[in-house]
C-alpha cells in the first residue's frame, strides 16, 4: 500500500468499515428473510407473514430474540477456542469486502491482488469451523468439522483453477480490472463451463445444500455448531449468509459484468445480479437432496478438478491462438 495512510485514505477506510458492517448486518437480515420467503414459495406456503409487511421485519425480531438468549457454554468444552471460533469465522468475511467493487469508484481499496486476498480469506473460514467443531467436545460437531475441512480443501482447488482461467483472460488480479475487461461481453458467454464450475464450487465452499455436509441436519444434527446458542450461533449464521453474498458478488464480478448494465446506476445492477445469484443458490438448496460425503469428495477430485484444468488449458490455448 502507498504511504497515504493518514489523510483521505484513513477517512476512506473508516467510512468503508462502517459501510461494510452496516451492509453485512442489513444484508444478512434481508437474506434470512429472503431465504425463508424463497423456501416458502417453492414449498407452496406463504412463509413469515405476521411481523411487518409479509414478515419483512421478522428477522429483526429473531435477531433480538437471539441477542436475548443465554450464551450456553457446555462443560468440558475448550473454552478459549470455543469462544473464539464465532469471531474467527466472522473476521475473514468482513475483510473480503475490502476489495469488492460495488460500482465504478465504489470500492474500499482496489488492490492488484484482490482475487488472491478474497480467496485466501475464504480459506480462513475452515479454520473457524474446525475450531468450533473441535472445541465443542461433541462427536457430531467433530464429524461436521472434519467433513468441512476435507470438503473445503477439495473444492478450493477447482475453484482457484476456474478463477485462473478468468485471470488469464484479463491479465490482472484486480477485481476492478476484471469488471473493466467485460466491456464487450460478459465472461459467462465466453466461459460458460467455468461459470458452472464456479457455481458448483462456490456452493460447496459456502456449505450450502446439496453440499451442506458439515451441518447435515439429518445426519449430524447441526454439525459443527451443534453446541452453540444465542448470539454465537447467530454469528455463524451471519457468516454463512455473508459468505453467500461474497461468492455471489465474485460470480457477478467474474462472469456477469459486475456493475455493468443499462439505465440503472452501477450499484443497482451490481446488487440485482448478486441477489439473482443468491436466489439461484437458494433454489438449489430447496430442490436437491444432499450428496453423500464420499460422493462429494469424489466429485471434486475426479470430475471438477480435471474439468477445471481442461478449461484452463483450453483458455490458454485459445488466448494464444487469437
Amino acid at each position, binding site marked *: 500500500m502507498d504511504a497515504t495512510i493518514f489523510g483521505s485514505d484513513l477517512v476512506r477506510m473508516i467510512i468503508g468499515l462502517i459501510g461494510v458492517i452496516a451492509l453485512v448486518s442489513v444484508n444478512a437480515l434481508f437474506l434470512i428473510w429472503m431465504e425463508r420467503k424463497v423456501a416458502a414459495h417453492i414449498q*407452496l406456503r406463504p412463509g413469515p407473514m405476521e411481523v411487518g409487511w409479509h414478515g419483512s421485519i421478522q428477522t429483526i425480531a429473531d435477531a433480538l430474540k437471539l441477542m436475548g438468549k443465554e450464551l450456553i457454554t457446555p462443560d468440558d468444552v475448550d473454552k478459549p477456542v470455543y469462544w473464539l471460533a464465532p469471531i474467527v469465522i466472522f473476521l475473514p468475511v468482513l475483510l473480503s469486502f475490502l476489495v469488492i467493487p460495488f460500482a465504478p469508484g465504489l470500492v474500499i481499496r482496489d488492490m492488484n491482488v484482490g482475487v488472491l486476498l478474497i480467496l485466501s480469506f475464504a480459506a480462513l473460514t475452515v479454520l473457524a469451523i474446525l475450531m468450533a467443531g473441535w472445541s465443542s467436545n461433541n462427536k457430531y460437531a467433530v464429524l461436521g468439522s472434519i467433513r468441512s475441512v476435507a470438503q473445503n480443501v477439495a473444492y478450493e482447488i477447482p475453484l482457484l483453477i476456474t478463477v485462473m482461467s478468468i485471470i488469464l483472460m484479463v491479465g490482472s488480479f484486480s477485481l476492478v480490472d476484471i469488471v473493466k475487461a467485460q466491456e464487450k461481453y460478459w465472461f459467462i458467454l465466453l466461459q460458460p463451463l467455468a461459470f458452472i464450475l464456479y457455481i458448483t464450487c462456490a456452493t460447496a465452499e459456502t456449505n450450502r445444500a446439496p453440499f451442506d455436509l458439515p451441518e447435515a441436519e439429518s445426519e449430524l444434527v447441526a454439525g459443527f455448531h451443534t453446541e452453540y446458542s444465542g448470539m454465537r450461533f447467530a454469528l455463524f449464521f451471519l457468516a454463512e449468509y455473508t459468505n453467500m453474498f461474497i461468492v455471489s458478488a465474485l460470480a457477478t464480478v467474474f462472469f456477469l459484468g459486475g456493475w455493468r448494465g443499462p439505465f440503472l446506476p452501477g450499484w443497482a445492477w451490481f446488487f440485482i445480479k448478486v441477489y439473482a445469484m443468491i436466489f439461484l443458490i437458494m433454489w438449489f438448496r430447496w430442490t436437491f437432496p444432499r450428496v453423500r460425503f464420499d460422493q462429494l469428495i469424489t466429485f471434486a477430485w475426479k470430475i471438477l478438478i480435471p474439468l477445471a484444468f481442461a478449461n484452463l488449458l483450453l483458455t490458454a490455448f485459445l488466448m494464444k491462438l487469437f
Partner: protein
Amino acid sequence: MLEPLEEKRYVLNLGPQHPATHGVLRVELEMEGEFIVKADPDIGYGHRAHEHMAENRNYLQFLPNMGRVDYLHALAYNQGYCMAVEKLIGLQVPERAEYIRVITSELNRISSHLLWFGAFLMDLGAFTPFLYCFDDRENILDLLDRVTGSRLTYCYYRFGGVPQDIDQEFIDGCRAFVKRLRGRWKDYDNLVTKNIIFIERTKGIGVITKEQCMLYGLTGPMVRGSGIPYDIRKKEPYSAYPQFDFEIPVGENGDTMDRYLVRLREMEQSLRIIEQALDKLPNGPIMAEKVPKRIKPAAGEVYAAVEAARGEFGCYIVSQGDVKPYRIKLRVPSYANLSILPEIAVDTLVADLVAILGSIDVVVPEIDR
C-alpha cells in the same frame, strides 16, 4: 477438549433425540471414522404397555388403543383387531361396511406412504418434497376427518361394521383426490425419482436378499423391494379385497431405491382400489344385525393378519371365556423390519444408515407398543 483418539473406534449415539430417527429410537453405533462397524438399535423409549392394557380392559375398551399403536396407518390396525374379534365371536360384516373399510383404509395407507415419502427425502436432505406431500396428505386427512371424526389416531371400525356411513360429499371428495394425486406422480418423478443425487444416494444401499427376508421375517415393502410378491391383501385375502383388481409392485435388487419405488407404485395401486370400490359400492346396512352388547367369546385363540403400510400386522388374541382377553399380542411389522438393521448397517456410512432407516419406514411407537 477431546483426548487424542487412542483407539480408532468410538461410539456414536444416534438418538434418542435425533432428526433422522422419527420418534425416540436410539441406535448405538460403533464407528471407525465415518464407517459403521456395529449398530445396535435400542428401542422401548415409547413403551406404553398396550398388551398389558389389553388384559385389563374388555374387548371394546381396547379398540381405541389400536389407533395409537401405528398412528400413521391406524385404520389397518383397527381392521386387524376388529377382524380378529369378529372371527372370535363369529360375526359377519355386511358388504357395504367392508367396502367402506377398504376405501378408508386405502386412503389411510396413501397418507402413510405420503408421509413416509416426505420424511425419507428429508432424511436425504431434500426438504421441499416433504411439504408437497403434506399438501396432498392434507386432503386425505380432511376426507377421513369427515367420516371418522378425527385426523389422526382413528377409531372408526367397530365389531361388525362401521358406525357411520359415508356420504356423497365424501365420495366426490375421494374421486377428486384420486384425480389430483394421479396428476402429481409426474412432479414427484421429475423432482425426486430422476434426480441424479437421489439415485446415487439410494441405489445399491442397504441391500436385503430374499434369504434375509425369510430369516428375519420381514413383511411389507421391505420384502416386496427384494422381489418377493408378498402382500396379505393378495395372499390371504380379507375384507373386500378379492373383488378388486390390483397388482403387487415388486423390486429387483432389494436396495433402498427399490423400496422407494415399491411404495410409490403402491400408492397408485391404492388409488385403483379406491376407484373400483367407489364404482362398485353396494347399498345396504353398514353394521351387522346382531352385534352382542357384551362381548364374551368362548375360550380359544385366533390370529388375524392385515396388510398395513409397513407390512403384516397380526393380531393374536387368546380368550379364556371372559369379557376381557387373556392375552393380546400385536405382531407389528416394524419390529421385525428394524431387527435386520444391525446386519445391513455394517460397513456403511452414517449418511447411508440414515437412508436405510428412512427406507425401512419405522414408526417407533409401533415397535415400542
